[in-house]
């Protein structure tokens, strides 16, 4: 007969065995090699997945990170900078009237599917982007947005001059053209792949000339690429395999890096950057500051249209303290809209000095000796230029409060925020920009295109500024263009249309043995340069 105590002992023993088994599984490393980054495989931790592998119809930065490795452009940005260097075009020139751009192409380059790269291939790609009746133009749900924004107005056609010379013929000059072509949305896709998979199909079957060949894309999980042995930059890429893993949670991505499952990562949490600094297995790199944050006034608002009120608000905010305290040491105070990596900046921008006494005096002069109340809107999401919108918003409101301006902090869902900044709902709000390329038109052209009294975003009315920006867009000489943009920016700063806050370097974290990972201003690093020490 089994007694009760013996029965429970049996249960306890069973539990002990199960516990021992689980412990065994946990402490025996087992197939740890199944998920660890190896010596010839570089694993990049991404913060999100792309929406397509066909950059021309995507504006998704997560797509661009991948396609930068598979495709080439006619011209590209120098590693770590926005300056231009040859890619598939070895040289270029523009006619004096600015209407004909001639590109000499690199010879002996083949796409991953063996198709030769030549002028005909370039024309195939431009025709596809430009002409709606092109058989490969139609992409289900896809929009050629960058083409529409940067090329559509000026482009007429492309001509094959000889197998390795191609001309772009324009209807009107487009001075930022070369800089615009450094955006991966103008990638050269294999004409044979367009024929084989169609305009929509190349979105999942990318065939380029780049350092890595596409192997597989498991949505929301990873993209695997393998080294292209015939890549035209000899000796590159330096790793055999490139995997881009999607780990959306910043903290989880950091833990994967600490555990050695990924080799490097983007967009860490600020606290994790501090942890990484003290971790002997990790190191930090940076994307150069290619972003700017600012406070934007609704210039049609009865309060904000008064220059003295704007000056008072600007003088009340301690931007230096905000940048020092809330940008984890990676920010610098902005003096104008464009970051220091850009040309066309104002050499000596009018200073905005933190001076609460002066702010109070200006308020009194404006007829508000006891201050006033208003709604101040902060961004609800984290952006490189405002890494923590709420904290920065709170700091600004606190500064304003010290001079008697009672700023009621407000925010709303990001989707609504984006929409409402184009209405007159916000008297003052946080905004910013991340550059697409190294041309000032991408900055000033986008933020000062016109006056619209119904939109806080475009509530600044200065025809001289609009005129300068429009003229700069069709001027051939970069020196003259630089002067025009600087002049336009001087007007904008003089009128205190916005209060520039900060430019932020964007940290990248990596394992100690990773070399050659150069942070790119546009966030699309060239993984071909990466190797393990």
């Amino acid at each position, binding site marked *: *007969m*089994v*007694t*009760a*105590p013996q*029965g*429970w002992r*049996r*249960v306890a023993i069973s*539990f002990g065995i199960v516990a021992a088994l689980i412990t065994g*599984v*946990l*402490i*025996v*490393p*087992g*197939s*740890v*090699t*199944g*998920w*660890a980054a*190896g010596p010839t*495989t570089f*694993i990049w931790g991404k913060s999100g997945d792309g*929406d*397509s592998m066909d950059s021309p119809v995507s*504006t998704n930065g997560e797509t661009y990170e991948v396609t930068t490795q598979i495709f080439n452009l006619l011209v590209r940005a120098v590693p770590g900078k926005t300056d231009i260097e040859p890619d598939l075009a070895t040289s270029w020139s523009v006619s004096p009237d600015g209407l004909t751009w001639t590109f000499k192409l690199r010879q002996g380059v083949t796409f991953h599917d063996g198709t030769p790269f030549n002028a005909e291939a370039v024309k195939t790609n431009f025709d596809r982007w430009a002409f709606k009746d092109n058989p490969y133009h139609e992409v*289900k*749900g*896809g*929009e050629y*947005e960058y083409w529409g*924004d940067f090329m559509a107005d000026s482009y007429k056609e492309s001509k094959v001059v000889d197998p390795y010379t191609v001309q772009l013929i324009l209807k009107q000059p487009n001075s930022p053209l070369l800089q615009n072509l450094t955006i991966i949305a103008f990638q050269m896709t294999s004409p044979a792949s367009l024929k084989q998979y169609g305009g929509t199909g190349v979105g999942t079957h990318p065939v380029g000339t780049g350092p890595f060949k596409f192997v597989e894309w498991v*949505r*929301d*999980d*990873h993209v*695997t690429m393998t080294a292209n042995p015939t890549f035209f930059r000899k000796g590159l890429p330096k790793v055999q395999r490139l*995997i881009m*893993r*999607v*780990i*959306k*949670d910043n*903290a*989880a991505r950091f*833990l*994967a890096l600490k*555990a*050695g*499952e990924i080799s490097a990562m983007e967009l860490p949490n600020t606290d994790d950057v501090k942890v990484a600094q003290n971790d002997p297995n990790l190191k930090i790199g940076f994307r150069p500051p290619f972003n700017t944050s600012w406070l934007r006034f609704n210039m049609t608002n009865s309060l904000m249209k008064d220059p003295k009120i704007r000056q008072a608000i600007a003088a009340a905010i301690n931007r230096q303290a905000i940048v020092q305290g809330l940008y984890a040491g990676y920010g610098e105070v902005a003096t104008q809209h464009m970051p220091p990596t850009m040309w066309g900046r104002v050499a000596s921008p009018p200073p905005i000095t933190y001076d609460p006494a002066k702010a109070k005096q200006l308020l009194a002069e404006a007829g508000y000796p006891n201050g006033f109340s208003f709604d101040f809107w902060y961004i609800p999401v984290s952006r490189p230029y405002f890494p923590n919108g709420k904290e920065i918003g709170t700091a600004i409101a606190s500064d304003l409060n010290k001079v008697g301006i009672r700023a009621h902090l407000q925010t*709303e*869902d990001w*989707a*609504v925020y*984006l*929409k409402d900044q*184009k209405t007159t709902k916000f008297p003052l709000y946080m905004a910013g*920009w991340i550059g697409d390329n190294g041309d000032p038109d991408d900055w000033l052209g986008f933020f000062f295109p016109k006056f619209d009294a119904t939109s806080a975003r475009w509530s600044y009315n200065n025809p001289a500024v609009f005129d300068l920006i429009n003229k700069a867009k069709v001027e051939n000489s970069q020196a003259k263009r630089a002067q025009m943009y600087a002049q336009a920016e001087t007007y904008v700063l003089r009128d205190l249309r916005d209060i520039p806050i900060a430019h932020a370097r964007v940290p990248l974290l990596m394992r100690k043995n990773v070399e050659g990972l150069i942070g790119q201003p546009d966030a699309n690093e060239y993984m071909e340069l990466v190797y393990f020490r």
Partner: protein
Amino acid sequence: MARYIARRAVALLPILLGVSAVAFLMIHLLPGDPATVYVGEHATPGAIERVQHEFGLDKPLPVQYGIYLWNAVRGNFGESLDSHRNVLDEFVPRFPATIELTLGAITVALCLGIPIGIMSAAKPNSILDRFGMLVALAGVSIPVFWLGLMLIYIFSVYIHALPTSGQLGVNISLVPVTHIDVLDGLLTANWAAADDALRHLLLPSVTVGSIPTAIIARMTRASMLDALQQDYIRTARAKGVTGLTVVIRHGLRNALLPIVTVIGLQFGGFLTGAILTETIFSWPGVGRFMYDSILFRDYPVILAGILLFSLMFVLVNLVVDVLYAFLDPRIRYA
């Protein structure tokens, strides 16, 4: 029984119709415009209008709902605003991963929850009981995302025994059969892949299973305590049946009914837990997809997801009702 199941199945239709109507209305009551999110910071009014027209967002709400229902009954749930792919094509490949995680979590919840409950009830107010209830309390109290990160920290970063995220190691190749990786590894005799997949499954399963484990443990304890005080238990003991046999055969069998009900209800917990857990562990399942879609305001995906989750929830409840008949011979359905 067959008639009962058929009747219940028909009753699903008005439930799903109601769910779809409420979900449709609530989503559209939210401020914000998916077209703006879709086009992003570059948005021009023309681009927004184009997108609104393309996805039918410029039509009156009842018309949009009517079109949606008409398409849905034909199996067309629309296109994702994010990927432009058919919504069903997005859900189908992600489903096996969520099923794998749910099975893992149910296994954890049953294997831990029921024994803890039984032990606590068998020795009420003992140290074992108090420890068991402490575990249960912790299970319901600890936020899932925090627990997940802590487990990763301990078992992946420090012990290096388990991976931090994903469903299968990037260096492992596996021929898909069912797309449930552990099962596929076993079916194809790819032991390395099965081992790797199991290790990937362990931490997310414990995370998703933590709350259901706690609730099942408490329910089992309460139900068992009640059962163990019944006359038939006393009679069994008087007849000389040993402690463990009494507890398992006479106690647990009679206490199971409410426990099964709770397990069924916890199914919703598995699904909502999966949304957070799949995000932390980068588990390529339906939960993470839903989370991303909510952030992106991907209306077609959110609606289809709500319908899908609701369908699963009511189906599980149907299964639970049917199970009653097997567990309690006194219950008969007509």
